């Protein structure tokens, strides 16, 4: 049977640091000096009764010609009626009304919000005002704010309250609105939006409508694969869970978070790059981790998230990884320049797609860079004046290629003095790492896409995960999550014995951890210690509550073991028990199908596979097995469609390539069959059966020499294959090497004395002499 589930690897329980940025209060003014009883008009550049249509001085800027384009491009995405900005900037009257503030906030670069220093990372969608535009606005405000010819003004951008990308395929809503109090400090809330469809979907875009955009500074969306936050707050999750940072239980499957699902007011629609959708499975929750600023009046947030589907699973698999040094965070009261640093050596080539620097209120200077193996330094980001309220994800204009061996660095400086206006403590106190807003953090998240990975090598994300976890354990050797993730990364690379050692080490710290017991069982199964594996699965089932995800995973692995051991009756029972207790999912259905197929109950198996595909149209096991059944019964056309779909789900499956070659052969497409077999060989170079199949197709295409070489290679890998010796004999006979051919047929008969074809070939050879 085919793999039912990727080996039990783990997902780092990503510390989701979610606090975001916003279109902060846009144009406001701070009087520059202590106010004196002086004439009130002194610094108003725009007396209200001044003539709005005063003629522009020769060569001076006007709103119509010069200023409106700048405001529309840089400000209007937030500053429009109903937008996240506190007022609109679409008209000349708007610009006049807020001219003093426009001048102040653009000259100080408070607006538009953009933290990275120019020259340290080439980012897309840079919001930093150009020096030219900054100077233009200053000249316009101080020069009298001429209106110019309104007919020559560009049309204002259009915004409406509908979904920007059209009607979503699915809208998720909070269970109940959340009411933000009028006053008080900023609030961090985690609003839970359950995904209630019974099938898996891939998400190509998402649009967030928080309900009251003017109070939402920023939001991060976290995928809670196991609904862990909802389960730990069974009575009050509907109104959201307080907290700035959160950890979610990522389950037992290597499914690393791979996308920055970060929302800020001017970018409500998050459109993923081509080929990089993200996935939602039945039972998942989306968590809207949201940073709220009270506005002075009670605000009701009735948040909703619009999702746009794609039928295509991801063709590219990025990954998020983080440099961090929370273990060093112990900042003395009053220390204005406390420094932490971290580094990580990349085990594979990657493209860096984006970054997300993160600290809380004491962060000040944040640097990230990479040193390449040739010594070259590439800047990733430098923020010299951190502000948690204006944090954001930054995506690079072009991916930054970093070869294997590159060392990533971060260097963060914190200001815990009373001179830091953001300091939440008065007077300052000692501050350590933690999840509360008054604690600190120091993280530099990177979105990387592995590149140049060999086709037959392990998933490069596993190598990244292993390197990352080893580095983390250097810093915090007793961290259980890191141990678990390290072991899982090793298990994912089939390094089962090493994985088992680390799991056992973790179990010494937490002997009753059902998830780790399950994972250890899987690792032991991988080493061939089947009985011990069974014992660990059983222990995990006994320790976990019935419907707990760890218990369900143990049940699944136990059932899968039955399929692998061809103990189909037991496997069927285990899968049926699993489906009775746990949430129905595609993998369990296709697992049951595999057990039935193994028992020869093909029609029942088909029914289970079809159900699995209703739940997840991309379920590999169902697609593969249905395709294989069709191919084995000579139905090349449906087989090809199913197997092509299976390969979209798991392009690295040599079995699917091989079966697809069979289907193509049935459809009279030998060259396509050849391509599939070559792909299969590349993925499984030590699989004798595939070499043998490749030899036959090459022979059919008249490429005898290569066909012979492939058959020889197959027999080197499996010298006891009677069919292979017979096939080699046939190739030799057709090439006129009769003695060698006879020897090969005889060899086949030594292995399998009743091999009918070898007997017939030998007889034919004797007759032809």
């Amino acid at each position, binding site marked *: 049977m085919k793999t039912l589930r990727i080996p039990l690897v783990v997902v780092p329980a990503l510390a989701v640091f979610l606090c975001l940025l916003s279109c902060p*209060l846009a144009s406001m003014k*701070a009087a520059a000096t202590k106010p004196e009883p002086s004439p*009130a008009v002194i610094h108003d550049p725009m007396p209200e*009764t001044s003539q709005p249509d005063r003629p522009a001085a020769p060569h001076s800027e006007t709103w119509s010609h010069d200023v409106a384009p700048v405001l529309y491009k840089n400000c209007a995405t937030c500053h429009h009626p109903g937008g996240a900005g506190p007022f609109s900037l679409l008209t000349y009257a708007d610009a006049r009304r807020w001219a003093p503030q426009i001048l102040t906030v653009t000259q100080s670069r408070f607006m538009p919000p953009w933290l990275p220093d120019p020259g340290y990372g080439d980012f897309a969608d840079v919001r930093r005002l150009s020096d030219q535009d900054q100077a233009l606005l200053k000249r316009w405000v101080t020069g009298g704010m001429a209106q110019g010819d309104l007919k020559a003004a560009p049309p204002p951008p259009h915004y409406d309250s509908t979904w920007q990308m059209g009607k979503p395929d699915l809208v998720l809503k909070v269970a109940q609105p959340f009411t933000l109090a009028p006053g008080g*400090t900023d609030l961090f809330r985690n609003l839970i939006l359950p995904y209630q469809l019974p099938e898996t979907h891939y998400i190509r875009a998402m649009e967030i409508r928080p309900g009251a955009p003017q109070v939402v500074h920023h939001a991060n969306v976290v995928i809670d694969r196991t609904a862990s936050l909802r389960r730990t707050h069974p009575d009050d999750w509907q109104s959201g869970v307080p907290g700035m940072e959160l950890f979610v239980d990522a389950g037992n499957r290597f499914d690393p978070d791979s996308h920055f699902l970060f929302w800020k007011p001017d970018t409500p629609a998050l459109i993923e790059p081509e080929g990089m959708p993200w996935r939602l499975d039945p039972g998942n929750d989306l968590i809207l981790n949201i940073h709220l600023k009270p506005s002075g009046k009670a605000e009701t947030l009735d948040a909703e998230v619009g999702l746009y589907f794609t039928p295509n699973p991801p063709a590219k698999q990025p990954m998020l990884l983080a440099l961090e040094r929370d273990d060093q965070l112990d900042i003395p009261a009053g220390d204005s320049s406390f420094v932490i640093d971290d580094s990580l050596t990349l085990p594979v080539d990657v493209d860096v797609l984006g970054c997300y620097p993160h600290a809380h209120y004491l962060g000040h200077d944040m640097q990230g860079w990479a040193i390449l193996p040739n010594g070259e330094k590439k800047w990733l980001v430098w923020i010299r004046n951190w502000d948690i309220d204006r944090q954001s994800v930054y995506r690079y204009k072009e991916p930054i290629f970093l070869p294997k061996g590159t060392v990533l660095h971060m260097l963060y400086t914190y200001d815990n003095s009373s001179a830091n206006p953001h300091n939440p403590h008065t007077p300052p106190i000692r501050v350590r790492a933690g999840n509360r807003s008054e604690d600190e953090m120091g993280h530099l998240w990177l979105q990387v896409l592995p590149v140049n990975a060999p086709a037959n090598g392990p998933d490069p994300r596993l190598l990244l995960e292993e390197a990352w976890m080893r580095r983390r354990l250097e810093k915090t050797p007793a961290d259980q999550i890191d141990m678990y993730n390290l072991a899982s990364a090793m298990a994912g690379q089939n390094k089962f014995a090493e994985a088992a050692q680390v799991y056992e080490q973790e179990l010494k710290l937490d002997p009753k951890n059902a998830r780790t017991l399950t994972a250890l069982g899987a690792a032991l199964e991988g080493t061939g210690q089947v009985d011990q594996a069974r014992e660990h699965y059983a222990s995990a089932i006994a320790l976990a509550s019935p419907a707990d995800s760890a218990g369900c995973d143990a049940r699944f692995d136990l059932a899968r073991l039955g399929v692998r051991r061809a103990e189909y009756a037991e496997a069927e029972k285990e899968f049926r028990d699993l489906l009775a207790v746990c949430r129905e999912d595609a993998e369990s259905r296709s697992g049951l199908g595999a057990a039935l197929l193994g028992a020869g109950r093909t029609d029942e198996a088909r029914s289970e596979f079809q159900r699995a595909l209703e739940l997840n149209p991309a379920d590999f096991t169902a697609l593969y097995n249905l395709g294989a059944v069709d191919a084995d019964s000579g139905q090349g056309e449906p087989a090809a469609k199913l197997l092509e779909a299976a390969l979209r789900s798991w392009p690295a499956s040599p079995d699917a390539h091989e079966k697809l070659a069979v289907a193509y052969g049935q459809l009279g497409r030998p060259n396509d069959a050849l391509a599939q077999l070559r792909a299969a060989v590349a993925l499984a170079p030590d699989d004798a059966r595939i070499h043998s199949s490749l030899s036959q197709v090459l022979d059919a295409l008249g490429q005898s020499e290569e066909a012979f070489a492939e058959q020889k290679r197959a027999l080197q890998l499996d010298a006891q294959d009677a069919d292979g010796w017979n096939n080699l004999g046939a190739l030799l006979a057709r090439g006129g090497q009769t003695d060698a051919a006879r020897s090969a047929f005889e060899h086949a008969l030594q292995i399998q004395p009743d091999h009918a074809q070898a007997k017939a070939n030998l007889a034919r050879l004797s007759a032809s002499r």
Partner: protein
Amino acid sequence: MPRLKTVLRVLFAALPVVLALFAVASKSQAPADFGTDLHGHPIRELAGAGIRVVVLIFAASDCPISNRYVPEIARLTNEFSRQAVRFWWVYPNSGDTAPIVEKHNRDFSIDGESLLDSKQSLVALAHTTVTPESAVFVVAGGALHEVYHGRIDDRYLDIGKERPQAQHHDLETAISAAIAGKPVPQPGGPPVGCSIVFLQK
């Protein structure tokens, strides 16, 4: 009339303190009226019977910082309302018409007294420049004497420099001092907010 004599003695005893207070206050030139209420009626008097201190809160319905101070002003109003202190919400921008302010007050649950300073006479009287900004007047001799104008507290240090919560409540301190007849501390920093849209002179 022994009782009356006692009262007079108390008043006389208090006089030196009041005089000391006036030493740091400036007598303000009162305009003919103080703007209009939300029904268009002129406001002739800011203090009224028994009022010892008048506090003006300059606000703008479209200014986000001004709006964020609504709960704080409500707290102060509640705290001082029984101490002969009268609060006024003053809207100095011409764009803040009566219907707009009425709606704004409803939206933000502002139930205090509001006036439209359409001639910006109170802006001149109080020397204010931004919203939100406050002014405190002591009532003496039938006149208003400004003893404080400036920020409400130090939550905002500048645009983009905001404390999680205020450390110094300048306005609250000023009102307390004014009520107590003590020298009134002046603001520790500039007011931060939205420029008042000044009328052309």
